[in-house]
């Protein structure tokens, strides 16, 4: 069974500025405050998600909309299990693939093949699984002999193609995608679209954060509008987008 269940979660992200992270302040705080313990109440934190509940089942395609800092990326990280909620709980069942930053994990000084392994590992694939996919990734990237060259010799578009080809080779039950996936020239974009569509269709659940309405409309059936970490509206994708756009326009 594939599913996500989010029960009334709160996520506080502590902010460690110039002062509060240092040992000195903590020792001083302990000395002046009496009891020798770190007091959570004194720390500055930002409430990134504030009281959210959500249930997703197989076939659900959820788009996340909202301003910058509304909590979209944090929610994706909580669903991935990267951030543990400060309160409430998250239950997930199924293989999760977080696709947050396409180029992450790649090394400019390594060649294309090594970068497939590096990026594959950071996506959570095993070395063996990545090796099995290498031929396919090479074909999709259309980089040919460039794969034997270090990544730093690639043009920005070529590097993006490679990153795209690796990231979309992941198969997962739950796909968590942050921001738009788009790379390369027009001909490549067309094939990229087909491949992304396929990846999304193959996944059991999609949660997709984006500022591009067209992509959300294309891939998602439902949408969640977040504002200051609070769920503002959850519903059919066009309704939520319309309400969100109205609010943005009148603001």
């Amino acid at each position, binding site marked *: 069974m594939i599913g996500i269940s989010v029960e009334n979660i709160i996520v506080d992200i502590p902010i460690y500025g110039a002062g509060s992270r240092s040992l000195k302040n903590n020792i001083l705080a302990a000395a002046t405050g009496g009891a020798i313990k770190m007091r959570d109440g004194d720390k500055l934190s930002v409430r990134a998600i504030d009281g959210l509940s959500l249930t997703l089942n197989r076939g659900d395609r959820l788009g996340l909309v909202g301003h910058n800092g509304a909590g979209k990326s944090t929610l994706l990280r909580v669903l991935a299990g990267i951030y543990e909620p400060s309160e409430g709980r998250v239950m*997930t069942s199924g293989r999760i693939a977080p696709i947050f930053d396409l180029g992450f994990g790649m090394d400019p*000084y390594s060649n294309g093949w090594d970068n497939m392994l590096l990026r594959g590992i*950071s996506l*959570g694939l*095993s070395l063996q699984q990545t090796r099995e996919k290498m031929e396919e990734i090479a074909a999709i990237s259309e980089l040919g002999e460039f794969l034997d060259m270090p990544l730093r010799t690639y043009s920005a578009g070529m590097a993006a193609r490679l990153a795209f080809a690796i990231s979309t080779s992941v198969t997962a039950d739950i796909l968590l995608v942050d921001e738009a996936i788009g790379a390369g020239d027009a001909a490549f974009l067309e094939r990229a679209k087909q491949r992304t569509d396929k990846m999304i269709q193959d996944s059991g659940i999609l949660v997709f954060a984006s500022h591009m309405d067209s992509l959300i409309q294309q891939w998602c059936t439902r949408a969640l509008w977040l504002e200051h970490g609070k769920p503002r509206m959850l519903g059919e994708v066009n309704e939520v987008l319309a309400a969100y756009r109205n609010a943005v326009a009148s603001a």
Partner: protein
Amino acid sequence: MAFIEHSSSKTWHTFLTTGWRDLRDGLRRHQAWMFLAGHEVRRQYQRSILGPFWITLNLAIMIAAIGWFYSEIFGQKIDTYLPFLTVGFIVFGFMSNVVNESANLFANEAIAIRQSLLPLSFYVYKLIFRQIIIFAHNLTIYILVWLLFPIPANLNILLAIPGFCLMVISAFSVALIIGPIAARFRDIPPIISSLMQVFFFVTPIFWTISNVPKRAAFVNINPFFHYLEIVRQPLLGQTPSSLNWIIASVLTVVVSVTAFAFFSRYRSKITYWV
């Protein structure tokens, strides 16, 4: 398929089960961290002719210089002093590298930690394995010294294997403790690096206990000394004392148990700290 729960539950049962899951999942990905560790070592010396052997050459130059000079100062014969110094440097180097690097471990991997689903212990395994690779490279100096100044060849050398295992287990555990603390308190890395410098001088690496008979007790309270001995003595064809074995074994158990509890307790905070 079972549900995986991430909750704010704060019971020791939750901590220890998730901590155990993290360590187990990390170990399962051994192929990946072995590959990455090797890749990092290679990468550091990319486009240089000697490659990773630069680490070894640096150490060899230092050992040769100090060996020649200090054997004179301490009035030691170079054919016993140089092997002693070599093994001491290589073994202590492993311990001090692990301790120093574990202080920057999670901070250096901050972006990766916020991006990927890899268990946090993955980065600890990778660090330890990278240091094992460097240790193995450095052993070539040991072999070279052996060829120049024959060390008595006997079966004692096999004792270095259990000795090294105890040292690696402890190194892993220490990294599990220092890593989270240093991620939270950014004053820790410089404190640790100056402490390790002090330990380098107060641990018998380029001097021996016989140089300081009145300070023997001081040497014996130094945990690094016992780990050093259980690897160094076998590699020199000698047997470590039973005190060395007992203290190193007890310390390994204590540090491992502490590390497991500590890492489990603070594991979920690390993502917020980096």
